C-alpha cells in the first residue's frame, strides 16, 4: 500500500518536468511578446530590444527552459516581468486563498455528494431516487460561472445575504472568511456534488444488495449503522476515483470562479500573467497546482487502502 503511494510519488519529479516543459513551449508559441507588452503603449524598438536582451528572451527555447529549471531546482521560480515580484513568494502568499476555496468546495462535495447519494439509494426506483437522478443530470450540465453570476445576482445584489466579491483571511475573521467562500465554493462544487452523488447512489444501491448487508440486518443492527458503517465504506471505493478527478476539476474551475467573485487568488494571478506572456508566474502556478494534484492523488491512494483491506498487504 505505502509502496504503491511511494511508487506513485517517485514519478512526481518526472511529471513536473514534463508539464513545466510543455507549458513553457505553449507559452512560447503564444502570439504575445512579453518584451512588447513590457515596453508600454508607445513602444520604442530600442527599448524592446533592450528588454529582450535583459530578460534573455532571444535565447533558444531549450536554453531558456534549462535556465529556468536550474533556478527552479534551487527554489527560485524567477520574478514576474511586470511587477518584478518573486513568483515563489507571490504564489505562496496566494496559496491559502485557493486552499480555503478548495477546502470549502471539498467539504461541500463530501457532505452534499454523500447525503444525496445515500438518499437516492435508500429506495431504488422511488421518488427520492428519481429526484436525485434528475437533479444530478441537470446539475452536471450547469456551467459554474453562470451559476456563480446567478448567485451573485440573487444572494448579493437583490438580497444581501452574502458578500458579492472579495476575500477575508481566516485569521482576520473566520465568519467573514466562510461567508466570502460559501458562494464560490458552491458554484465550484455543484457539478462534483452531482457527479459524486450519482456515482455513490449507483454504487450504494448495488452494495445494499450484497450478502453481507443481509448478514448485518440479521445481526439486528439498525438501518443507520448498516448504511453508514457497513455499506458506505464499501460503496465509497469506486466513488473515490471520481472524487479524485473532481478535485482536479475544482483546481481548474477555480480560475474562472475567482474572476466571477473577485477573489485575488492564483487564478487571477495566472490570467493576468497569461495575457502578458509573463512566463514565470504561469509556470509557478502550474507547478504548484500539479504538486497539489499529485498530493491529492496520493491521498486518494491512501484512502483506497483504508477502505479496501485487500490493498493494504
Amino acid at each position, binding site marked *: 500500500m505505502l509502496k504503491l503511494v511511494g511508487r506513485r510519488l517517485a514519478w512526481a519529479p518526472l511529471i513536473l518536468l514534463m508539464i513545466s516543459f510543455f507549458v513553457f513551449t505553449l507559452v512560447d508559441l503564444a502570439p504575445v511578446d512579453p518584451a512588447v507588452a513590457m515596453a508600454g503603449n508607445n513602444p520604442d524598438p530600442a527599448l524592446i530590444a533592450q528588454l529582450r536582451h535583459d530578460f534573455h528572451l532571444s535565447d533558444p527555447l531549450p536554453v531558456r527552459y534549462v535556465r529556468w529549471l536550474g533556478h527552479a531546482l534551487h527554489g527560485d521560480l524567477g520574478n514576474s516581468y511586470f511587477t518584478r515580484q518573486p513568483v515563489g513568494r507571490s504564489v505562496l502568499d496566494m496559496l491559502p486563498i485557493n486552499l480555503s476555496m478548495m477546502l470549502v468546495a471539498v467539504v461541500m462535495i463530501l457532505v452534499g455528494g454523500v447525503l444525496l447519494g445515500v438518499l437516492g439509494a435508500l429506495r431504488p426506483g422511488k421518488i427520492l431516487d428519481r429526484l436525485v437522478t434528475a437533479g444530478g443530470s441537470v446539475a452536471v450540465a450547469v456551467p459554474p460561472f453562470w451559476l456563480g453570476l446567478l448567485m451573485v445576482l440573487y444572494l448579493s445584489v437583490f438580497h444581501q445575504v452574502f458578500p458579492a466579491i472579495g476575500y477575508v483571511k481566516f485569521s482576520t475573521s473566520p465568519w467573514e472568511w466562510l461567508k466570502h467562500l460559501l458562494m464560490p465554493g458552491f458554484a465550484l462544487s455543484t457539478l462534483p456534488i452531482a457527479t459524486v452523488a450519482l456515482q455513490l447512489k449507483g454504487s450504494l444501491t448495488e452494495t445494499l444488495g*450484497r*450478502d*453481507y448487508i*443481509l*448478514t*448485518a*440486518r*440479521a*445481526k*439486528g*443492527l*439498525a*438501518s443507520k*449503522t448498516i448504511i453508514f458503517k*457497513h455499506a458506505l*465504506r*464499501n460503496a465509497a471505493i469506486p466513488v473515490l476515483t471520481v472524487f479524485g478527478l473532481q478535485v482536479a476539476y475544482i483546481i481548474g474551475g477555480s480560475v474562472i470562479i475567482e474572476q466571477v467573485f473577485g477573489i485575488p487568488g492564483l487564478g487571477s494571478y495566472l490570467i493576468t500573467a497569461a495575457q502578458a506572456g509573463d512566463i514565470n508566474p504561469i509556470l509557478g502556478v502550474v507547478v504548484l497546482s500539479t504538486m497539489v494534484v499529485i498530493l491529492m492523488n496520493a491521498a486518494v491512494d491512501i484512502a483506497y487502502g483504508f*477502505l*479496501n*483491506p*485487500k490493498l493494504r498487504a
Partner: protein
Amino acid sequence: MTVDGALLLDVDGLTVEFNGPNGWVRAVEDVSFQVHAGEIVGLVGESGSGKTVTSLGVLGLTRAQGGRMPHGRVVFEGTDLVTLDDKALNRIRGRRIGMVFQQPIRSLNPAFTIGEQIAETIRHHEGISRSDAWARTVTLLDKVHIPEPAKRARQFPHEFSGGMCQRAMIAMALSCSPSLLIADEPTTALDVTVQAVVLDLMREIQAETGVAILFISHDLGVIADMADTVAVMYAGQVVERASVEELFISPRHPYTAGLMAAVPRVGQGRQLVAIEGNVPDPGNYPTGCRFHNRCEHAVAMRCDTDLIPLLPAGEAHDSRCVRTSELMLEGVVVA
C-alpha cells in the same frame, strides 16, 4: 435425538408476497411448521420452493427486500414476530435468533476484520466493553475450532477460506447465545470434505449449547444427516412434514418420493429416475395441487381443481396430497 423440548418457534400459515411488475406475487403460501427447543428441523426443497423466503420471513428480513406478510403468525418464545416493527425485531435478530447463510465469504463484510464483525454483534446487543467483547470473540472463534483465534480475529474475510468463513459466521450467529439458529444452505458453497467438517461442527455445537436449528437445504443427504424432523417445500408450500426417519422410510407425498428417487444411487444402473417437467415460478403455480402436472399419480378432477390442505398421514406426519392414503410410495431403501 429425541424431541422433548418446549415449543420454541411456531410458524403458522405464513404467507409472503413480493411486489413484481404484475402486482403482488405470492412466493410462500400457508407455510406451517414448528421448532422445539434443542431440535434440528430440516427445511428441504429445490430452488424457487420458497425455503429461503420462509427463513427470511421468520425474522422479518423479507421487508427490506420489499416483501409483505399478509397472513400467518411466527410465534417465537411467545411473541408473534409478524406484528413487531423493525426496532423490536432488531432486539431478536442476532440476539435470540442467529443466522448463517449460503455464501460464507460474501456474507462477511470485506472492509472489517472477522473479529470486529463478531464483536460488533456482541456489543450491539449486550453493550459490554470493547475489551470484553473482544475476549469473547476470541473464545468463540476457538469454540468453532479456528486455529490461533487471537491472530485470526484480526484478519479480514479475504484472508479466510470458505470453510473458515463459515465457522466465523457460525461463531457470530451464536455470539449472543441465541435459542434458535437459522442456517440457510450453510454448506452448499463448500467442498464436500469441508462440508462434512462444518456439519460435524454444527452438530457438536448443537449438543453443547442446546440451540435449536432450522436447517435449510436442497440436499436430501445433508438433511438426512442433520435433521430430527423435516418439512418438504415445493412451489411455495410445505407439502410434507414428518420425523426424519418417517420421511425417509415412508414418504407420503409423491414429490418427496420423486426427490428421493432422483438422488443417484449405486446399483441402479445408468438410468436415473427423473421427475418430468420443471419447477414452476412463483406467480405461475398450477391450480389444485401444485405438483399435479409433474406427478405420475395425479388424477384428473381430484388433483387439479381444489387447493389441497396439509392432511394427516400418520402420527406427526402430514402430507399435502389427496391420494396420500391410497398411494404406496417408496422411500430411501435402508440397508
